[in-house]
């Protein structure tokens, strides 16, 4: 059979050391080849079947290295799907694997539907006929589940904004259509390039906002912006190091040696975090340090999660209490560090200040309490409606891909307007944006344009 090339992350979402992006289809090898840079210029399209190759994934758009990978090339028919299959093994956790997937999708592959690899295996005769019913159940069940996920997300801000945006586009489209189908109709002002430009720019701006505010999408692209705060020398950099298992931040006993903001990406039990260590937030005369402090305050304001570190070995200070005040209303985990030293802190007061937020005690020096901290982080984000299932993940990834495509369509509309392309042709790109946004919320029925046309305008002979 002649199918397009599909791709998905085939390892479960979580803290696994290796994540695999799998491609299947005629273009699998050439798409992978396009974003792969092997040792000594080796090309994937030239390698023998069922071999594995070391190299890097490069973003062809800017030449940047995205990930260090091992790529397995398996050619049809001796593969799971009986199509050409490429598996890209990434080691950098969820964030980078997601970037690899995005690259594959922007370079010609389509995101696989739930169960689609299995379906292809079946369609291509890899799976026994007697399993037909099972496959159908799978398709049904997975699609329904995907729909449930879609539905639960529909209640969110994302889908509300998309609905609003689609309505804006729809009204604009109807306006263009009415000019075309009822050229003599006097009640509507002619849609001008200028008017259309305003609308298109508004739509682009809103899509940008969506891309920024769609929390799930943001987590997947960047990780949760997690800011570590605390007075100097409470162990902030040690905490960061413990989580990263690497020694990148400078750690000393002298207060104020961490002068700049340090960022690290880390995957904690399936929650992608962008860890930000700040220079100690405290009033200081040192100019260099003050710049660091100001940036820290800005970081705190923009954070998704705050890790507030206190010293077990010191009494709570006014500064500590001010920190609690600063992060009021945010997602906070309180970490009381240095339990290897004698207790001087008033834990009851800490719990009182934490006001329901989780409090974890650690000794980063003795590597105690880190498990509990990781558990607290994962608890915070994987309870409630959003499940840590690969489906949630996939549909989010799909949203991002669709939003990017929609944005691209709007940008093409804008450049069409700039170069004076007639409105009814520019409109093709706007319609495409409208359809793409509709795919996110599962609604692309074309008829709604005609409904809009007749409810918005009084038409007829």
């Amino acid at each position, binding site marked *: *059979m*002649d199918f397009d090339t599909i791709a998905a992350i085939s390892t479960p979402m979580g803290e696994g050391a290796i994540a695999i992006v799998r491609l299947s289809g005629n273009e699998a090898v050439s798409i992978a080849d396009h974003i792969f840079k092997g040792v000594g210029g080796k090309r994937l399209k030239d390698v023998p079947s069922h071999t594995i190759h070391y190299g890097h994934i490069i973003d062809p758009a800017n030449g940047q290295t995205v990930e260090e990978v091992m790529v397995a090339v398996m050619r049809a028919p001796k593969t799971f799907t009986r199509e050409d299959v490429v598996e890209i093994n990434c080691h950098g956790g969820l964030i980078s694997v997601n970037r690899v997937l995005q690259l594959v999708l922007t370079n010609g592959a389509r995101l696989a*539907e739930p169960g689609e690899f299995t*379906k292809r295996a*079946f*369609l291509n005769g890899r799976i026994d*006929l007697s399993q*037909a*019913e099972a*496959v*159908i*159940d799978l*398709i*049904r069940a997975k*699609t*329904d589940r995907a729909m449930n996920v879609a539905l639960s997300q529909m209640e969110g801000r994302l889908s509300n904004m998309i609905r609003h945006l689609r309505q804006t586009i729809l009204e604009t*489209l109807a306006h263009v*259509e009415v*000019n*075309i*189908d*009822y*050229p*003599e*109709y*006097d*009640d509507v002002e002619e849609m001008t390039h200028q008017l259309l430009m305003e609308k298109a720019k508004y739509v682009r701006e809103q899509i940008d906002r969506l891309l920024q505010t769609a929390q799930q999408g943001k987590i997947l692209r960047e990780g949760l912006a997690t800011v570590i705060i605390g007075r100097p020398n409470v162990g902030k950099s040690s905490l960061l190091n413990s989580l990263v298992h690497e020694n990148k931040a400078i750690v000393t006993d002298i207060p104020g040696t961490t002068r700049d903001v340090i960022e690290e990406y880390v995957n904690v039990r399936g929650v992608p975090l962008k860890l930000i260590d700040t220079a100690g937030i405290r009033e200081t005369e040192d100019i260099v340090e003050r710049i660091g402090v100001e940036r820290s305050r800005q970081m705190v304001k923009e954070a998704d999660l705050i890790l507030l570190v206190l010293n077990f070995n010191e009494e709570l200070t006014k500064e500590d209490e001010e920190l609690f005040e600063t992060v009021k209303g945010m997602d906070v985990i309180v970490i009381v560090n240095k339990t290897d030293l004698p207790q001087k802190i008033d834990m009851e007061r800490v719990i009182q200040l934490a006001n329901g937020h989780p409090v974890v005690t650690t000794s980063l020096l003795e590597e105690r309490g880190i498990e509990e901290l990781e558990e607290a982080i994962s608890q915070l984000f994987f309870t409630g409606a959003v499940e840590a299932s690969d489906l949630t993940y996939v549909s989010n990834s799909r949203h991002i891909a669709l939003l990017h495509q929609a944005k691209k369509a709007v940008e093409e509309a804008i450049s069409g307007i700039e*170069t*004076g*392309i*007639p*409105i*009814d*042709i520019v409109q*093709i790109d706007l319609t495409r944006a409208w359809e793409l946004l509709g795919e996110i919320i599962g609604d692309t*029925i*074309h*008829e709604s*344009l*005609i409904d809009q*046309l*007749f409810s918005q305008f*009084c*038409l*007829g*002979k």
Partner: protein
Amino acid sequence: MEYHGGSYDVIVVGAGHAGCEAGLAAARIGAKTLMITLNLDMVAFMPCNPSIGGPAKGIVVREIDALGGEMAKNIDKTYIQIRMLNTGKGPAVRALRAQADKFLYQHEMKKTLENEENLTLLQGKVERLIVEDGVCKGVVTHTGAHYYAKTVVITTGTFLRGEIIIGDIKYSSGPNNQQPSIKLSEHLEELGFELVRFKTGTPPRVNSRSIDYSKTEIQPGDDVPRAFSYETTEYITDQLPCWLTYTTEETHQIIDKNLHLSPMYSGMIKGTGPRYCPSIEDKIVRFHDKPRHQIFLEPEGRNTEEVYVQGLSTSLPEHIQRQILATIPGLEQAQLMRAGYAIEYDAVVPTQLWPTLETKLVKNLYTAGQINGTSGYEEAAGQGLIAGINAARRALGKEELILSRSDAYIGVLIDDLVTKGTNEPYRLLTSRAEYRLLLRHDNADLRLTDIGYNIGLISEERYQKFLAKKAAIEKEKKRLQTYIIKPTPEVQEVIRQAGGSELKDGIRAADLLKRPEMTYEHIQLLAPADEDIPADVVEQVEIQIKYEGYIEKSLQQVERLKKMENKKIPEDIDYDAITGLATEARQKLKQVRPLSIAQASRISGVNPADISILLVYLEQGRIARVSNE
């Protein structure tokens, strides 16, 4: 008295816009054809607007012409005014519209029918079909004549159980007080067809001599020669204007006050009317804040004083219609000649048809036009042509013709009807076509002449001309794609004059043409051709080069869809034997019986999971088939 009236290849019932195309196409393809109509004086009659074309519809007329149909030629011979619409917009949405001399239009069409070899024109009323074992074999008229044929096309328009309603008056009638067709409607129900009740309407007509045109605005035709048909060479130059006026506050008050007398609101009318053609009372109720509505005054012909009051479609009582007319500037003294009315009629639920327009229920029986739930002469004619072609080809043992959504608006129209059905009289709109940049007014010949030629409706002479045009387009495109324009002072001057930025380097003529400010005329100055390039070739070259990127995008979309179109579903597939289909999807699939996966995916209520399941079954070749009972 029952008797044998004769045997034919094809019988067409009805001689409206669908019937005329069906009969002519069948006869011209070589099928011995009989056309039966209720009233020979009403051939190709326009009971509503005396107008042909408009956005989308005008493109259909061009398509009909490219396929070898008659509508374009007939209107070119009989219009009183012609205009190109949307000239300020892109090439995809330009369309012609003509005001017809409705009487001349009829006479010309009748003459064409009468002079057609292979075609017999007959007045009579078909009351039932001869159906044996689910196969249509002919028709029986009210006089007892039995006519036999290999295939039958029904194009009875709004005549099926037609009822005219004016105020509280309601009587059985076809349009314009013609005989309705009641027995045929009952007979179709007996055969098992599902019928639906639709409604449409028409405005009053007034005497031109009683209109004060000084209070209206003139709407002249174009002063450049225009024609629908690619074969028309002589143009009517003597055009008549239309006139524009508006409703007033007083008009609205009268309608408001008398709304209870409107059968639309009294509950007397049950049929669904079209949203795109609302009555004046509907417009005022639904858009109460709009202070005025446009009223176009359109002459019905050169040899009549009757004027069609476009925009005033109504079924209010006659005396209210008179009051309304008197409130409109220019019509204060207008003499009412015919009152507006609403008409309710039966239509066949179109999902009961194959995309060839053959009915699924009765083999060799086709339906086309308003009987299929559409509205508009052009939509009717387009279907008539396709039904006529397919009926004739079936009779002659040839393969059927189905136009796709990327071939023609006619393809969009028929696919919409048979796949989605319609819950109001269906009208084509440009927004219904997803590939409208490909389905242009100007390239209908490029899209469809080959098809028309292959089915035998395009003459050899015309085809050779067409091939020459095609070759000329390619040649000129190639020339512009290779010709390098160098930045000489003369060249820069021309570009500056056009408002563009100067060249830095040599540029291909084609690339320069892509700049928005450049036209083919500019390019001709900078890169003159050795020979004279005809205007229709220039038009194509310019559009194809200027919008190349967008056209390419559309073509890619079509290509993607083709894969799905090529996955055929056998006609005898048994959807009940496929486990896993959702109930709604199963019902819809059983009703529509799509021919391809692409068509299946366009049915509302059939979701991607159902399509996947269908694919699984199709690919495994394990389709449970209906046993041959």
